[in-house]
């Protein structure tokens, strides 16, 4: 018989191994799933995990999709460490895209050197402004940030939809709900020739290092972590709860907003109704797979990006439904949460309790 038993101390090995276990669990289940669908699992795996990486263009696509996942994941991870449950990175991303895209449209075809820095700044500020709403409501009225951030996602998306259907619609766009294409100075330059990957990935990686320094080396990062682990201890030490909430939400707003503008000023090149296939939500999984650790989030983002690419590739190559991407994401999170149990618990084989020797004596006595 096996029994769950609390470990004497949380296993540090297991906290690193757990994401790997989750990845393997996802693969095995995927294998069974492909087999059940009558697809050759080996070919499916090849399409899903190898083919997307077999060309420079593919690598570029991987990095391209990693960028928004990583940016949002970083901000979310910092907030989650402080027990601030922002699940609306998607909305902050959208608002960053709107603000930055608005600046780009204002510049039009201008060659100004200020255009790109101002767009990025506007993107960051747009995301932060959107995140400031739940921060204000939580600190002032004690609202639940999970609900507020989630609802604000839909508001942001509808705002974008209204803009591209209305005021910002391209007059020459044959009534498609999209803005004019951004000018050259308003489009991010390509990092690797022959791919679509932009400087966004560099910003994201630099920010991962910055986030790591912030989380591990600064007192502000420490305060946020204490607030997450033991709120009473934070109050006792005099760390302001409100300040932590503001910092957590604004940081995520900033990175998600940057992700948004990097998308519209990068591969998309204009504002349109649909700018993200749920990067902001997938980034929640990314943050957890990355153990809420900025460097871990980099790997989490790469893996999640591969799932997006693999899903597309499998759709095209084998005619699998598009739900396959979400399915793999869900599998990954499912196995991760299951494997995480073993950070604080372990399985112990319980030999059926050796019936105490004297029990026999009782028998003979009775």
């Amino acid at each position, binding site marked *: 018989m096996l029994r769950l*038993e609390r*470990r*004497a*101390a*949380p296993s540090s090995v297991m906290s690193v191994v757990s994401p790997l276990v989750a990845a393997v669990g996802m693969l095995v289940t995927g294998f069974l799933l492909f087999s059940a669908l009558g697809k050759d699992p080996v070919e499916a795996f090849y399409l899903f995990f190898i083919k997307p990486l077999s060309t420079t263009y593919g690598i570029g696509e991987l990095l391209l999709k990693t960028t928004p996942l990583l940016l949002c994941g970083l901000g979310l991870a910092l907030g989650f460490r402080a027990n601030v449950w922002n699940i609306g990175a998607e909305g902050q991303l959208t608002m960053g895209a709107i603000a930055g895209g608005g600046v780009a449209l204002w510049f039009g075809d201008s060659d100004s050197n200020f255009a790109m820095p101002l767009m990025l700044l506007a993107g960051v500020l747009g995301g932060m402004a959107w995140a400031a709403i739940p921060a204000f409501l939580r600190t002032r009225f004690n609202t639940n940030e999970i609900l507020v951030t989630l609802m604000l996602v839909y508001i942001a998306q509808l705002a974008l939809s209204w803009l591209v259907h209305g005021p910002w619609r391209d007059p020459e766009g044959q009534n498609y709900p999209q803005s004019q294409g951004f000018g050259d100075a308003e489009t991010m330059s390509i990092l690797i020739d022959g791919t679509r990957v932009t400087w966004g990935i560099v910003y994201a990686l630099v920010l991962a290092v910055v986030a790591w320094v912030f989380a591990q*080396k*600064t*007192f*502000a990062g*420490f305060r946020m*972590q*204490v607030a997450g*682990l*033991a709120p*009473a*201890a934070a*109050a*006792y*030490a*005099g*760390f*302001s709860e409100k300040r932590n909430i503001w910092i957590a939400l604004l940081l995520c707003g900033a990175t998600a907003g940057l992700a948004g503008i990097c998308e519209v000023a990068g591969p998309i090149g204009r504002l349109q109704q649909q700018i993200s296939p749920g990067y902001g939500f997938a980034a929640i999984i990314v943050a957890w797979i990355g153990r809420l650790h900025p460097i871990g989030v980099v790997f989490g983002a790469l893996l999640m990006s591969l799932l997006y690419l693999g899903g597309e590739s499998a759709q095209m190559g084998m005619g699998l439904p598009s739900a396959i991407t979400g399915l793999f994401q869900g599998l990954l999170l499912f196995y991760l949460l299951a494997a995480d149990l073993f950070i604080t618990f372990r399985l112990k084989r319980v030999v059926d*309790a*050796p*019936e*105490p*020797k*004297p*029990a026999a*004596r*009782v028998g003979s006595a009775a």
Partner: protein
Amino acid sequence: MDQSGFANLKPRLVLTGITKRYPSVVANEDVSLSVRPGEIHAVLGENGAGKSTLMKIIYGVTKPDAGTIMWNGQYETITAPSQARRMGIGMVFQHFSLFETLTVWENIALALDEPVPTAKLAAQITEVSEKYGLPIDPYRLVHSMSVGERQRVEIVRCLLQEPKLLIMDEPTSVLTPQAVLILFKTLRRLAAEGCSILYISHKLDEIRALCDTASVLRGGRISGGAIPKNETNESLARLMIGGELAECHLIPREAKEVRLDVEHLTLQSPDPFGTSLKDISLTVRSGEILGIAGVSGNGQKELMTALSGERLSSGSMIKLLGRPVGNLNPAQRRALGLTFVPEERLGRGAVPPMTLAYNALLTGARKGMVQTGLIHPTVMKTFSKNVIERFKVKCGGDQSVASSLSGGNLQKFIVGRETMLAPKMMIVAQPTWGVDVGAAQLIRQALIDLRDQGVALLVISEELDELFTISDRLSVIAAGRLSPSVKPAETSIEQIGVWMSGKFGDRAGEGAAPAPPRMETANAPA
């Protein structure tokens, strides 16, 4: 109850060779003991000696790796508390097992194996609780109750089931001396009715006053047995810690300038079941310890949070070093030289999953551990290593996580940390609650040393012996009001006990309590 009275009775409970190993520690090794009907048997030992594990084994919470339990002459394997309860074993835990969001009667109903109608149960609760002098309102929510009140719920919950064996894990730490006497009466009555009692404690006086027999645990093994009445505190302590007990001494000295001045502090409790502070005035001077006694739940928590800054107050009711601080937050008050040790160690005084080094940073940021916003790891580690060394914190070093330390060792670390922050004023709540004798002496001595260095200390405690040992002056908090202060030498445990029930007659003619000695007289001889 006389030893000979049950000497020839068949034992109710016999443990033989009980062994329990945990991944990191052997909690019990080859422990054997027996209890007869009507016997009050003390299980004595320091924190971490394995007392609680042994009791959990008897109560069916924990399964032993080896050994046998015989109950009324039958070998039994107790697999669950419900089975233990059916057999007639009741247990009052040291760490309460109550659901905070439920009411008293709901909590008790959950522990009953048969459903009982609410009204009937509530009436039973009231009846039993009053019979044993532990009044509780069955309809109150547990989260609003103090530690002391929660324990009453636990005790009453057990008594309702009319147990044959009652296990009491450190039950008196939250009671007034009078209430302790009542509890002892209760326990003796239960024993006389034939109920066996296993009484876990480290309070030697109590054990000598109450218990018929004692088993002493040290490091998970039985280090000896004794008839407590025939022993002295010293001989019991020797069995318990395997060495001599250090004494701490308070050499009278002149207090200097006022460091903390509280004037007419009145503060409504935000919690409807909390205790509002009413017109509290006190001063603490440099080089003195003011002790505040009182039964838990009489405003200690509220006073502590008002003084620490976790709860703000208006005006200049609280002055620290002559400065009004009512509207300053804890960090700002700390910057002025205030440090404090809270009652809850894990989760408030320390962050459970963080290392001791980071727990030093929790309040030690001003000690050079943070420079321009960045954590300075060497300063942090040196500081925590110093704390560990000076306060003899038993741990694996500054990288041990706080939750891996025993309660006493963690408290040593927290007291040490707050001490080494070189405070001008230090507030300590329950310095030695649940801490073993050895560690308690060390902590008390540390507080006295601080006082001798000219620090002003305010100690809130429920242990009267402790307050009598370490206080220059003593006050009592009852129902949110504070008594006048008195020198320990000029009062008595009984007097303080009367005050603890709220009768300190600050208005002429109120209550039966004799007029307390005033500070003017107390100051004269030094």
